[in-house]
């Protein structure tokens, strides 16, 4: 059979594509790569107060960044061995799929679409967020129902806008979203009176109210949440070992809070009489071996960043400028949703 030049070229291309695609599909284990390079490559946001942000000294701070630090401490024994890759909301999934980052810890909502079709797995929930509204108090609006027909300022490019229209449609109300491309523009529009309400995740609303205007008391955050936004770290599909490590590092931080293990007392609690604490800190049994780690994996993570409660307080809660209440992010034993499967 004689091949035309075109067909020849196509065959070569197809062969090349198959040859290149194959190694990508059977990528080496993430854990091996992390150990070999001596660092965890962590995708974070380009700046969201309390979650991931660069401070004035150039250090990364926030809840999402502490998850990566805990991971580096558990896997590599050094919380400083993280390579930060700031990503904006449009481009956050591509680097994970392409293998350029090991974990995406970037205030990303766990949804079915993302979990099932984006080539990634969400490992755990580190923050239960929800979408809320802020209004000027002088508008006398006290619940969402009163926003019928109101113009609502919203930022484009996230699920916020879709949640807004979905919610109003479900309520049989008319909404007039006023969409802005940037965070600054949408806020300026709201505070200058362009819209009757501003909507985004409630974790951001409080900070906005307290920092952007002179009199925070002039504005109110409505009690209703119109969406569920469970945020958490995601990993690439096809590496179950790494998936388990990320998942259990997060669970270890939550379990530590439940067991009363803190950054300060972890060392002394290694000889605790409580078997659950012993297992967590690697005092007796070696639980880390089952994850491909050593027995002090969780101990190092807790020593590096503290338990979940400490992380929350430092970045979002009482000890942070944001002063957010624990709310749904309280432990299940205290009426919240934070629940870790047992480490045994």
């Amino acid at each position, binding site marked *: 059979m004689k091949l035309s030049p075109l067909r020849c070229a196509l065959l070569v291309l197809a062969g090349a594509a198959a040859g290149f695609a194959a190694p990508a599909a059977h990528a080496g284990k993430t854990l091996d790569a992390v150990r070999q390079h001596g660092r965890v490559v962590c995708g974070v946001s*380009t*700046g969201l107060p309390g979650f991931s942000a660069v401070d004035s000294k150039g250090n990364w701070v926030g809840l999402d960044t502490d998850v990566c630090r805990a991971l580096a401490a558990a896997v590599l024994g050094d919380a400083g061995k993280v390579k930060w*890759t700031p990503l904006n909301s449009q*481009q956050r999934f591509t680097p994970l799929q392409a293998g350029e980052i090991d974990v995406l810890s970037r205030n990303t909502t766990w949804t079915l679409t993302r979990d099932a079709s984006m080539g990634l797995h969400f490992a755990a929930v580190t923050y239960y967020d929800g979408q809320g509204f802020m209004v000027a108090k002088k508008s006398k609006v006290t619940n969402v129902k009163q926003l019928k027909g109101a113009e609502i300022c919203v930022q484009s490019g996230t699920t916020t806008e879709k949640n807004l229209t979905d919610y109003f449609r479900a309520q049989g109300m008319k909404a007039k979203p006023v969409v802005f491309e940037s965070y600054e523009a949408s806020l300026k529009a709201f505070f200058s009176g362009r819209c009757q309400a501003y909507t985004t995740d409630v974790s951001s609303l409080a900070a906005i109210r307290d920092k952007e*205007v002179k009199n925070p008391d002039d504005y109110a955050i409505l009690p209703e949440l119109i969406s569920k936004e469970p945020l958490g770290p995601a990993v690439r599909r096809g590496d179950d070992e790494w998936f388990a490590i990320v998942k259990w590092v997060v669970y270890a931080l939550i379990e530590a809070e439940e067991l009363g293990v803190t950054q300060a007392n972890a060392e002394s609690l290694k000889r605790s009489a409580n078997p659950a604490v012993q297992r967590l800190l690697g005092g007796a049994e070696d639980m880390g071996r089952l994850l491909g780690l050593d027995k002090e994996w969780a101990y190092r993570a807790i020593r590096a960043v503290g338990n979940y409660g400490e992380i929350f307080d430092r970045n979002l809660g009482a000890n942070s400028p944001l002063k957010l209440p624990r709310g749904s992010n309280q432990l299940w034993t205290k009426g919240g949703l934070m629940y870790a499967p047992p480490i045994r």
Partner: protein
Amino acid sequence: MIAWLRGNLFSGWASGLATLLVCAGAAALLPDLLRWGATHAVFAPDAEQCRALDGAGACWGVIAEKYRLVLFGRYPHAEHWRPALATALVLAVLAGFLLLPRAGRFFLGRAVPLAAFAAFGIAALAGALFLMAGGALGLAAVDTSRWGGLPLTLLLALGAVVGALPGGILLALGRRSSLPAIRALCAVYIELVRGLPLIPVLFMAAFLFPLFLPRGLGADVLLRVLVALILFAAAHLAEVVRGGLQSVPQGQYDTARALGFTPWQVQRYIILPQALRAALPALTNSFIAVFKDVSLVTVVSLYELTGALQLALAGDADWRPYFLEGYLFIGAIYWAGCFALSRWSARMEAR
């Protein structure tokens, strides 16, 4: 003085009216602007004071607090002297192109030879790149993903222009070639690339291109983006250069050929010097456009000036309200760069 005023500002009723309107506008706006920008402004890096202003004055304190992050992006904090020195070196190269001809005439009595020029430029740029990258002579290696701010903007802009100009000249010559294949190839390339917006080109270079390569292989993202900028700018510069080439009459080419010049010699010594001179204002325009286009690389996670500002402010609840002041700061840097370029161009035209 009176005569100058009358001649330049009040030469007719229309011009007089325009002068009065502009003066009235300035008189109305200037006090507010001064109050906002100077008398009521806060210059200390104190977020509480800034918040107390409630928009009545500018909060320049945000620059005082964050200028290192804005200027140098994610570069390791303790090593900021390196990008600072690298920026100074790059600026020295640019200033050198402005000042060396004069200095040469002043001290040596003749122009500095082109080779010395080039050697100086290459040495300084190599020095700047080495300072940024490190990895030897006791300097810690800094990954290109952490380069940012002003040095990144300057290096990318300079790299794009220096790389694109020869490419653009070749493409322009190719498009006027007498060989149909070369002519068609150059025309297709120019029209194809000129028809694309820059952002998708950057996306392809940064995200799509690595998907076709085996993992772990392939060039650094900064290099890929620089190549994309060069390929993009070359197509635009090619048309500008072609405009210059067309301004040189065909007769000069024929005459030079008749005198025994080879075709390349004709281009090198007769056509191109005149063409580039004719195209200089338009070329400067393109250089300025490239300089400003570099701000788009922030969409592919390279944090040049505007991206670095985003990083510096977006995540800090205390300072986030003062983006406007940050953008004005960056605007001033861009304006200074563009103004210097246009002065350089004016001087080159005068020579």
